């Protein structure tokens, strides 16, 4: 690896809207985030289950994926192609890429959930000969990556990573490694997911979602708060365009952030559907990774955590950060998932905007320090633009990933 890697394009879609400006406004706001009613008509939900999620307005995609093209795609594929085109436009390639060598590395936690559900219904309820070829070919996890490749003529490596909440940062790391090694001149990388009623109801049955935890029964998530009781589910996508610093300079592109390091670790004490107690080992891995990359902890002046309001997940993430920093004080900690939700890539977009110095509002939902975690996330007061941002994400099941982004 030799080349320095920069982010020159950002495409994003979520409940906050489409494009980086929509996400920037949502992150700066101190308003109650916009949530949509989840369709409960199928009867999947328990009576006390949460009723809301961060959902994408399909109208937002029409500008980017015409109806004739969209009809051959699952919702995640539409998110993928739309955000890939946004990222390319943002990077200055509205008219198309100069060659067909671009790589695609994306992550999804759950794959094309609505098409998988439809296919399972056909097979299990109507009989296997009812299975639709269209549903099948768009139900595979790598269908969105393939649709990006087709839409953008990207003939470099096409890789889909499935590692739950840790996936998006892993995807950016793998793509950065590919560009740095000279295997591809550039790569589209990021994360995406859709949130269906079935998936929403199952996440609730596993105890993952916040239920009526705000005033007047409002559904809010409380990252790092003592009373946190779950996350708010979301859908959407964020894709980044990565290229070498030299390539960006040569064509006069303006980097949004620099990818300085990436890494990952695993907590073998974690159960398959929860979090473990191995934060000390994770902290050692994080420190070792930063040392190898030549980044002293003191240089990190902002942390963007994946804390989502999950009781156990936030605990692991907070304790690993505290353990890594030891006696030293943590830099300001941003926890944006209470306004953008869990899943769908918005977190990755927030991290890139944070590295670019975007203002963040007070951490929505945080009211009371959890003495065990000992972290008070950002209160909305003005912060100097950061130079080095650590981004962390702790997945259910044990995987943990991180990225270090530097200001452009």
């Amino acid at each position: 690896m030799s080349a320095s890697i920069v982010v020159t394009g950002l495409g994003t879609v979520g409940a906050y809207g489409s494009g980086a400006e929509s996400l920037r406004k949502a992150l700066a706001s101190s308003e109650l985030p916009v949530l949509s009613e989840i369709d409960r008509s199928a009867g999947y939900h328990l009576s006390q289950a949460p009723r809301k999620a961060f959902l994408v307005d399909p109208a937002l995609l029409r500008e980017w994926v015409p109806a004739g093209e969209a009809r051959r795609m699952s919702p995640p594929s539409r998110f993928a192609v739309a955000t890939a085109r946004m990222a390319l436009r943002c990077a200055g390639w509205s008219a198309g890429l100069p060659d067909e060598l671009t790589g695609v590395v994306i992550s999804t936690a759950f794959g094309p959930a609505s098409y998988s559900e439809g296919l399972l219904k056909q097979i299990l309820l109507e009989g296997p000969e009812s299975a639709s070829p269209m549903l099948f070919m768009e139900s595979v996890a790598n269908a969105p990556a393939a649709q990006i490749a087709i839409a953008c003529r990207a003939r470099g490596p096409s890789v889909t990573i499935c590692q739950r909440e840790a996936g998006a940062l892993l995807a950016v790391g793998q793509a950065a490694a590919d560009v740095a090694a000279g295997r591809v001149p550039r790569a589209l990388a990021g994360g995406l997911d859709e949130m269906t009623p079935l998936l929403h109801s199952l996440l609730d049955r596993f105890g993952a979602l916040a239920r009526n935890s705000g005033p007047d029964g409002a559904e809010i998530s409380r990252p790092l708060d003592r009373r946190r009781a779950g996350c708010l589910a979301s859908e959407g996508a964020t894709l980044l365009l990565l290229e070498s610093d030299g390539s960006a300079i040569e064509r006069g592109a303006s980097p949004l952030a620099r990818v300085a390091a990436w890494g990952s670790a695993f907590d073998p004490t974690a159960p398959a559907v929860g979090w473990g107690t191995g934060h000390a080992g994770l902290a050692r891995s994080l420190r070792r990774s930063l040392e190898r990359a030549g980044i002293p902890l003191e240089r990190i002046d902002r942390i963007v955590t994946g804390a989502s309001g999950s009781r156990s997940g936030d605990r692991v993430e907070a304790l690993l950060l505290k353990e890594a920093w030891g006696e030293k004080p943590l830099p300001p900690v941003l926890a944006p998932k209470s306004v953008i939700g869990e899943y769908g890539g918005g977190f990755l977009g927030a991290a890139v905007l944070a590295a670019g110095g975007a203002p963040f509002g007070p951490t929505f939902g945080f009211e009371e320090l959890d003495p065990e975690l000992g972290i008070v996330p950002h209160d909305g007061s003005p912060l100097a633009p950061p130079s080095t941002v650590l981004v962390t994400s702790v997945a259910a099941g044990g995987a943990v990933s991180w990225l270090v982004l530097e200001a452009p």
Partner: protein
Amino acid sequence: MNHKAVSRRVAVSGVGAVSGLGWGIGPLWEGLRAGRTAIRPFERFDNTAHRTHLAAEAADGDVNGLANDPRWQRLLSLADRFAVFAAAEALAMAGLASLEDSEAGVFFGSSTGGMFESERFFNEFLRGRWRSAKLRDLASQQVNAPGDAVARWFGVSGPVRTISSACSSGALALGAALDAVRSGEVDVAVAGGSDSLCQLTYAGFNALRSVDEGPCRPFRAGREGMSFGEGSAVLILEPLEQVLARGAEPLAEFVGAGSACDAHHMTAPEPSGAGAAAAMEAALRDAGMPAGEVGFVNAHGTGTPLNDAAEWQALQRVFGERAGEIPLTATKALLGHLLGSSGSIEAVATVLCLRHEELHPVPTCSEGATVDPELPVSLVLDRPLPLPGVKAAVSTSLAFGGSNAALVFSRWTDS
């Protein structure tokens, strides 16, 4: 710069497998040498209403005492169990008793994870029989579950990454593991894949009419499609010097990996074979090896008319006039298509062939006994082909969505 500025040579120090030929490398190699297909009527699920009725099912077998561990049945899906068994066998062969104090990582491919068990849940849940649907059937449903299960079982605390790029998942995971060992990110990589038979993929591929009603016949005249298999394969990758330093003998050297996308169609391969050829060329470039040094090819060879034709085009692009002469096998004719695990079990088969200096055959079958004259490959039939002194081999994986991957292994010699 993210990791140590090194590029280390990488050895395969252990392999493990579960397949339709049995649990373990012993039955796998014995069956491969004999050219004995494991594709037959199966009982994993009731397939009477499906269009086809064959698969290479991994029957219950000797699991070396693992089945006595209480975690085995309670916490692991079938795909997880395949993966843990294969990893245990591979680690034992490598002489690695524990990974808890190692800088180890897990790099896995899977297509459907614990979908077989999940179908039990959804069969109840989607009918509104909420109380009969057991959440525990979903506990290991995730695609990342087999790789995570391996990491959990062996106490791995380094990177764990699951790739789900359909039929190239296992090969792409091996490529990621190669990078991680070369760069110094890990000192031991447990790399492979796992998938079990399930109705979702069985009915899905049948819906595409890409499944042969008989055992698949890669590169044969009259071939009509693929056959399914299930199982797992794991390769232990380590820096060559580390293996030699503890007095172990490498099984092979893993010298290159490459991938490229067709960007053509969701299910049909690009007919000119350009994408598959680009993956092979990238792998050979990564290995620093001219195509002329490749002694045999373990082809993706699904047996679908379009895939085999595109692969033949790709072979001609890479090997030129040698394309029709280079010995070729297609492991799927014996094990069926293991989907997300196919790239890893075919990598294991390739390593075993290099080590034994002979190429495993595919069986002559009553229908389509002759090689398709339009695709005149040198398919090894019925008896293993001795390849004394063979230097290197390529294994290819060409997936749904045009995701192509190729791996290059070289035979280990202490000279």
